């Protein structure tokens, strides 16, 4: 019994969709008297999950967006309560769903180390004893007594990460969000996690990044639609996941939370659809024709607004930007009601990798009234676009270009 670190028995988690919860009293009243339960949509993010993790194991949790990975982490880190089931954690737990939780911009670096460390579960004495190490690791010792609002974003992240890196839990629960940021930070983060895993601690790691999962973990758990799909050795899980992933559902690329927020007075983005026109049933690869359709609802007239899309790579670098107006000069007017604006990209010029797409709704005079960052996460598969046997990735540039070479012996 004592070698079990995490024991989960039949955990389920239900969410009520829509805004029925944090609504105003008057809405609550209306729903109390209307017996129309159909408008309350239930969503089971986790369905009867059971699993066991032994002490000292590093377990990767994989699955598509919406498979329930993050919900499982939130339940196990006790941020949210399960609807059914029970679980047991044997040991001191730290969960890292982001770095710098609770950082206050007005406080100095020194104060924030104490604040953040305490929030993460360290005692003041523990922080005091590790204080010098934390400061040295972060490399911001010169600015220790400066409010962090004056820090650069790099300094901020470094300080936040070095606090997190000095946690000494027996069970560590980490979300992949930690693995975004600049490349150096990612490397540091993965290195630290590897170190933690090798010290015989129990690690639960959620990620899309199969390379990282494969490197850090010995075991894997694959979730699908809120259920445990497969448990096994990490290599088998990673293999299975890649096969599984090729049965696609592009809706998984849309960040529903961002979509929900993509609205302003009189305009709401309702749904985004991505179609692979070249190979409708497979994942999007370099060189495919791809259509993005944006379904909206307008409650008033918008004269010549613009839709804009910014394609970014994983580091947030803008790769290219497309818009109806002014870039393409395509004019649209929106009227009351539903509609759809679609964009077709012929021969997608992106090379293999993950990309993010920001959506923007721009009124006349170039005023962004909606800027939905990271609305779409686009996974582009590698493909031998030139037919040369070479699959293009980031090592050969951001994009590929449809082109021809010609060689002639005729002299000028």
């Amino acid at each position, binding site marked *: 019994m004592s070698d079990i670190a995490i024991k989960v028995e039949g*955990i389920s988690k239900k*969410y009520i969709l829509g805004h029925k*919860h*944090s*609504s*105003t*009293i008057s809405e*609550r009243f209306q729903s109390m008297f209307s017996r129309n339960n159909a408008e309350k949509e239930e969503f089971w993010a986790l369905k009867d999950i059971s699993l066991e993790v032994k002490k000292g194991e590093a377990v990767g949790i994989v699955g598509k967006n919406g498979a329930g990975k993050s919900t499982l982490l*939130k*339940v196990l*880190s*006790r*941020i*949210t*309560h*399960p*609807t*059914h*089931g*029970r*679980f*047991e*954690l*044997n*040991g*001191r*737990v730290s*969960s890292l*769903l*982001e770095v710098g*939780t*609770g950082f*206050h911009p*007005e*406080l100095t670096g020194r*104060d924030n180390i*104490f*604040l953040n460390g*305490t*929030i*993460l*579960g360290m*005692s*003041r004495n523990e922080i005091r004893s590790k204080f010098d190490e934390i400061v040295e690791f972060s490399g911001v010792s010169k600015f220790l007594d400066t*409010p962090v609002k004056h820090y650069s974003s790099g300094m901020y992240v470094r300080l936040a990460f070095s606090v997190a890196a000095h946690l000494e839990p*027996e069970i560590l629960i980490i979300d992949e969000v930690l693995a975004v940021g600049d490349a150096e930070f990612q490397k540091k983060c993965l290195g630290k996690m590897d170190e933690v895993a090798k010290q015989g601690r129990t690690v639960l790691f959620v990620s899309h990044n199969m390379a990282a999962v494969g490197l850090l973990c010995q075991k894997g758990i694959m979730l699908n639609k809120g259920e445990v799909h497969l448990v096994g050795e990490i290599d088998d899980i990673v293999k299975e996941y890649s096969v599984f992933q090729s049965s696609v559902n592009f809706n998984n690329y849309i960040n529903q939370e961002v979509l929900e927020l993509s609205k302003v007075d009189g305009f709401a983005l309702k749904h985004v659809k991505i179609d692979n026109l070249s190979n409708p049933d497979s994942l999007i690869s370099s060189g495919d024709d791809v259509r993005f359709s944006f379904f909206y609802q307008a409650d008033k007239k918008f004269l010549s607004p613009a839709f804009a899309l910014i394609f970014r790579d994983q580091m947030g670098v803008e790769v290219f930007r497309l818009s109806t107006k002014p870039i393409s000069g395509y004019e649209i007017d929106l009227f009351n009601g539903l509609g759809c604006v679609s964009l077709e990209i012929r021969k997608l010029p992106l090379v293999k990798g993950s990309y993010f797409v920001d959506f923007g709704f721009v009124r006349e005079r170039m005023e962004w009234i909606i800027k939905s960052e990271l609305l779409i996460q686009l996974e582009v598969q590698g493909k031998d676009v030139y037919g040369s046997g070479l699959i293009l990735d980031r090592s050969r540039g951001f994009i590929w270009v449809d082109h021809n070479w010609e060689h002639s012996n005729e002299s000028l």
Partner: protein
Amino acid sequence: MRTVVESDKKGINLGLNELIVYKDLFLILAYRDFKVRYAQTYLGFFWAFIQPAMTLLIFTLVFGKAAKVDTGEIPYPVFAVVGMSAWAYFSYVMSQSGTSIIGAQNMIKKIYFPRLVIPMSKVLVGLIDFVIVLVFLVVMMMIYEVPFSGKIVFLPAFLVMNVISALGVGLWLSALTVRYRDFQHIIPFAVQFGLYATPIAYPSSLVIKSLPEWLVTLYYLNPMAGVVEGYRWSILGIGELNIYSFISFFMVFLFFVSSLIYFRKVEQVMADIV
């Protein structure tokens, strides 16, 4: 260390012993608020003093001089400042803890800790201003040469009641605001309304004398009515604790206990709906 979470467990566990584990967090959150409160202000601490001083000035002019409220042998400014000290603390803690959960939503969605720590830490933050007001009170009593009553030994009981009434109302508001943002709008209103619906600027005998009995009972459902009377009774030795006062004391405990239970209930879904 072993943690067990069960969804179907019956009964409510207030989990107050867990708060002890998180006492450092409680202290540091209070420290944060305290530091941030006067960050980049020119007058700093002085603000904690200006606000009650100005209110006292207005009260003295309006109620003391213009309306000539009868406060017996106690000079009006001393009479009013005692009530104000209790009320200032109450209103500060109530409004700060009432909005605290919404204010900490980013934290709540990212990490676990007993959520009670957040509104509770405001109790400590408020104490700093409270001490400043108490110093002000003592100075006023010295200026007007009003002696302390022997009943001052009972003051700690009323201080405790002041704390838990503020916390009780604050916890209710913070938990309710998670679900219904309407309560955000109620807080400033409650502060203003309460200032007049509590015997701060006038003696409670005025209320008992001039209002019908049912309305007096209603008046004493205000948990602060009894606390303010208790302050005056123990510090100045005026007034008496009657049956109405005890209704008010009972309300303090009712608010406090019920707020803990309700807060615990909402806590389970807090991260999902905040």
